[in-house]
């Protein structure tokens, strides 16, 4: 059973930056494109090691995505790096038409996915990146929970031949998958196997969901917890199993409740196993500036907020 290692702190962006430089040494096909955010997204580590394969494209995300498509057509594996907000909102059409439609082997890495962007507020928060990317055919979408999963998933994303959207987060967060873990594209990971209420989570909020599981257990509620690092393709069988086991489902994500994990799970369950659901995520509104913990508390994205919704669903199931 995986336990949170609070002594091992690392942001997923940092883990990504380190792994990218490591992979760059092994795979000469990798080239990296940056839109003037290298020190924030951490592709600066790659840039220092491989200046000949690093391209500063300026604050011009649309053009950067086009370059990546062109480089991919010449046999390179371009990694496009910017904030999640700009990769998805700003360059949406380029991602769709120059990358996804022709199935170019481009990896789009959106840093600062979700709420936490150093107090930047609504312009820099990305609550719709997964929704946008999920609606684009041919896209693989990965949102890892910790540094270890980030590094494994990045290696898999580079190996995979086709477009990938890879979401990283800014905060330094603890480690979940210390020790024996193997990431696979499209595979969910069961973290708890209780039968009272199922939580399905993605990205760094899986850590909060796991803490929420502790709160639930203290109240005598045994939760099921499924972590889904791949949002597309979604692990349909694992989702249906979670719903079948517990009978009620709470999805957990640092993203809008429209179009993200909650929607993806609802799409599966409404078809294969209709189940009462609640969603933890950003309600249909723009974000704001604030410290990470303040944002989490205000929008119910912390363990207490998740546990509260899970208890509600459990009580509803029991007719309490």
């Amino acid at each position, binding site marked *: 059973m995986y336990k949170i290692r609070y002594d091992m702190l690392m942001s997923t962006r940092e883990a990504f930056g380190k792994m990218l430089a490591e992979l760059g040494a092994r795979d000469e096909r990798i*080239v990296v494109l940056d839109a003037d955010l290298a020190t924030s997204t951490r592709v600066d580590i790659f840039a220092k090691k491989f200046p*000949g*394969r690093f*391209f500063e*494209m*300026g604050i*011009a995300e*649309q*053009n*950067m*995505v*086009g*370059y*990546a*498509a*062109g*480089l*991919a*057509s*010449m*046999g*390179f594996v*371009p990694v496009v790096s910017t904030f999640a907000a700009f990769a998805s909102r700003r360059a949406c*059409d*380029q991602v769709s*038409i*120059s990358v996804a*439609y*022709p*199935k170019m082997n481009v990896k789009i890495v959106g840093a600062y996915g979700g709420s936490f962007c150093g107090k930047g507020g609504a312009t820099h928060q990305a609550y719709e990146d997964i929704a946008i990317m999920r609606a684009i055919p041919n896209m693989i979408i990965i949102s890892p929970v910790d540094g270890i999963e980030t590094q494994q998933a990045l290696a898999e994303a580079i190996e995979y031949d086709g477009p990938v959207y890879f979401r990283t987060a800014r905060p330094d967060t603890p480690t979940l998958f210390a020790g024996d873990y193997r990431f696979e594209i499209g595979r969910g990971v069961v973290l708890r196997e209780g039968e009272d209420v199922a939580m399905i989570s993605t990205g760094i909020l899986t850590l909060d969901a796991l803490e929420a599981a502790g709160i639930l257990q203290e109240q005598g509620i045994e939760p099921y917890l499924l972590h889904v690092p791949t949002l597309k393709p979604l692990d349909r069988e694992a989702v249906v199993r979670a719903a079948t086991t517990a009978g009620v489902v709470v999805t957990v994500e640092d993203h809008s409740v429209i179009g993200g994990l909650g929607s993806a799970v609802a799409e599966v369950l409404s078809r294969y196993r209709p189940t009462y659901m609640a969603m933890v995520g950003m309600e249909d509104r723009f974000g704001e500036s604030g410290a990470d913990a303040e944002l989490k508390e205000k929008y119910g994205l912390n363990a207490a907020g998740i546990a509260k919704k899970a208890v509600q669903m459990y009580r509803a199931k029991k007719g309490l």
Partner: protein
Amino acid sequence: MSLTDQEVEAIRSRVRNVRENVLRMIHNAASGHVGGSLSAAEILGVLYFKVLRVDPQNPDWPERDRFVMSKGHASAGYYATLAEAGFISPAELLTFDCINSRLQGHPDKNKTPGVDMSTGSLGQGLSVGCGMALGARLKNLDVRVYVLLGDGELNEGQVWEAAMSAAKYGLDNLTAIVDRNNVQLVGPTEENMPLEPLEEKWKAFGWEVLSADGHDIRDLYEKLIRAREIKGKPAVLIARTMKGKGVSFMEGTAAWHSKAPSDAELAMALRELGGETGV
């Protein structure tokens, strides 16, 4: 370098076939962009019948020159040229725009042999061409990249992002060509969103600027060869053209931007094209 009269005549005759096929395709499909296909006919012809190092028998040959049809809506002209060059059969042209066809309204690289990049959403092709040129340089490949842009397409900001970056990276294995036909969907480019002074704009972005009569085969050829010899910066060829060129009632008007000819209009247009060259 110049072309002999015989070479010019051979290309001209093939370009006439392209024009005729464009009209038949668009008439048959009752859809397609005729004006911009006809304005680009000589540009595409000189590229595919003379300048580009490509192999229709081996369309994915890694060391081929690349061509990006950034003005993807002129797909009828592109497909008719690819057919004339031997990438696809002329018979297939009449499937253009039909359901299940390999010849989509806008080019799809995964469907049509010889198409190097999917295009259609305007403004994206130059960035892709830049990426190809950069990739060719990183691999030390003697590959030249050509990108054909519409003039209306230059309204898109991404074109100028790409222009800035191509100069930064000194992409001298890249040639952009602007089909300067002066007319976009709604009307004249200078009324819609003025582009002039266009040559000065490209110069200010760090490009070598050439211009040619976009219907003069010899002039186009010479300028494309000259563009190849420029070192240290990218080159753009402004090809002055006429929208709907070759069919009197289609020339110079936005009305034929994306209109399909009727039976009678097709017959009239084909007569004009034949008559012009005495066939």
